Structure formats: structure tokens, C-alpha cells
């Protein structure tokens, strides 16, 4: 079990006075969670909240409560495409991610025979390839931006998109892997 600390550690020093200390604006919450949950929370924090675990957990819980309240009021919580929205609907606002999926500055669609994921604007590089390279190399968004001469915002947008479009990107990567392995076998047979 991993211990998940939600609030970054801070040092406090109090003078010995008669007055009571002011009430704490933030509280520490620790929870024993499975390793996978720990990794998932930290990954979410890194991708969406610049590594701040407390912000990620707070936003996730707020969204979870929104869903529960909607269900308790007899509502259905579903996902649909923007062009098939019903006449009346409620939508949660996720703190810090208000613009997520609304407008992309650095990612674009491209007319490609088989790839459907988004590309880095002005580059012959998919968002998935960039995000995966960053993850494997263990680079921060800033380091990746320097490595590929890209704005940091483009790297962050690619990482967030890669999280959302995980299945699509995985399918395209699988297709790529099959072709690469086939080509390798074919070349080996020729040699």
C-alpha cells in the first residue's frame, strides 16, 4: 500500500503567545491506497495539474460529487458528441480544466490515410508519439519542450489529449508495431 499525501509538506513555526493559532485553511489527509491507485493519482496530477496531487484529488472528488448529486436527482450522466447535444443539459465544470477539449491551440487534425489522432501543429509528429516519448524518457513538459523545440503549452496539450484519446492512440501504435515487426521479419528473411 502506498501512502498518498494530498497536501504538500510545509514547515510551520509558532511563537509562544496567549492567542490561539488561526484555524487551518488546509488540512492534511493521508490514505492507504493500492500502488496502482497511487500511480494513477500521481499520473493524473502530473498530466493535468502540474504535479499538484491535492488539486487533482480535489477536482476529481468535486466531479465525482457532481455525478452522484445528478444521479440522486434522477438524472443520467452520459457523454455525447457536441453536435448531438440535447436542448437542455447540465455540464460539470472541472476546476483547472475548464477549457479542456473546447479549443486546442497546438494540436490539429490532419488528412491522413489511417491515423485519426491529432498532430502537433506545424510538425510531422502525432500527439501520441510526443506524449509517449516524454513519458518513456521521463522528461518534464519543460524538458520535452526544449528537446523538440516546442512551446511548453504544446507538450502539455499533447499529454492531456493523449490521456483522453488513450484507446485510439494505443490502436494506432499497435498498427504501427505490427507493420514494423513485419518489415523487420521480411528484411531478416532477405538477409
Amino acid at each position, binding site marked *: 500500500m502506498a501512502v498518498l499525501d494530498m497536501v504538500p509538506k510545509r514547515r510551520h513555526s509558532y511563537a509562544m503567545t496567549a492567542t490561539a493559532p488561526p484555524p487551518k485553511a488546509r488540512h492534511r489527509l493521508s490514505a492507504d491506497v493500492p500502488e496502482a491507485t497511487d500511480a494513477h493519482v500521481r499520473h493524473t496530477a502530473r498530466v493535468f495539474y502540474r504535479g499538484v496531487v491535492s488539486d487533482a484529488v480535489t477536482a476529481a472528488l468535486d466531479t465525482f460529487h457532481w455525478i452522484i448529486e445528478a444521479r440522486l436527482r434522477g438524472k443520467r450522466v452520459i457523454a455525447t458528441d457536441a453536435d448531438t447535444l440535447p436542448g437542455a443539459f447540465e455540464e460539470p465544470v472541472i476546476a483547472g480544466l475548464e477549457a479542456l477539449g473546447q479549443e486546442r491551440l497546438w494540436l490539429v487534425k490532419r488528412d491522413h490515410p*489511417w491515423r485519426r489522432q491529432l498532430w502537433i501543429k*506545424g*510538425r*510531422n*509528429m*502525432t500527439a501520441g*508519439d*510526443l506524449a*509517449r*516519448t516524454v513519458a*518513456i*524518457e521521463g522528461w518534464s513538459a519543460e524538458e520535452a519542450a*526544449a*528537446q*523538440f*523545440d516546442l512551446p511548453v503549452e504544446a507538450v502539455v496539450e499533447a499529454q492531456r489529449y493523449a490521456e483522453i484519446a488513450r484507446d485510439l492512440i494505443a490502436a494506432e*501504435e499497435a*498498427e*504501427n*508495431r505490427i*507493420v*514494423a*515487426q*513485419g*518489415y523487420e521479419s521480411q528484411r531478416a528473411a532477405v538477409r
Partner: protein
Amino acid sequence: MRLYVDEDVASAELISRLAEAGHEVLSPLRGQADSRCWRYAQEQSAVVLTMNAVDFVALAEEGAHHGLVSRSAPGLTR
């Protein structure tokens, strides 16, 4: 070896390591179609290094070329 490093793998670290290892590294043509990049690499007698196997294998199968190194997974500097 002369290498054309495709944009999807062209990190500063990889280019630097390849150069340190004695390779002549051609910088990628930014934002250009794969066919244009492939043609440029062939004109320069360079081996193409890319992560994009599907598209470059198709180009390689069109005829003789100077070489293709395709990795299906990134992380080439590791």
C-alpha cells in the same frame, strides 16, 4: 553513417548522441509530408530513422533506398 532523423524522434538528446557516435545527422524537414522527407533522405543518401513504420515502410517498398530504421516504440535515447 548519414542519418535522416525524422521529426517524431528528433529530440536534441538523440541528435546529439548520434553525432557523438560519429554519425552525420540530417535535421528533419519540419512539417513536411513523409513522402517529401523520404525523397530528401534518398537524395542525400541517408538512412531514415523514424517511429512511423506504417508510412515509411510503404515508401521503402516502392523501390531501392539507402535504408530505414523504424522503431515502433519511442524512447530511442534509452
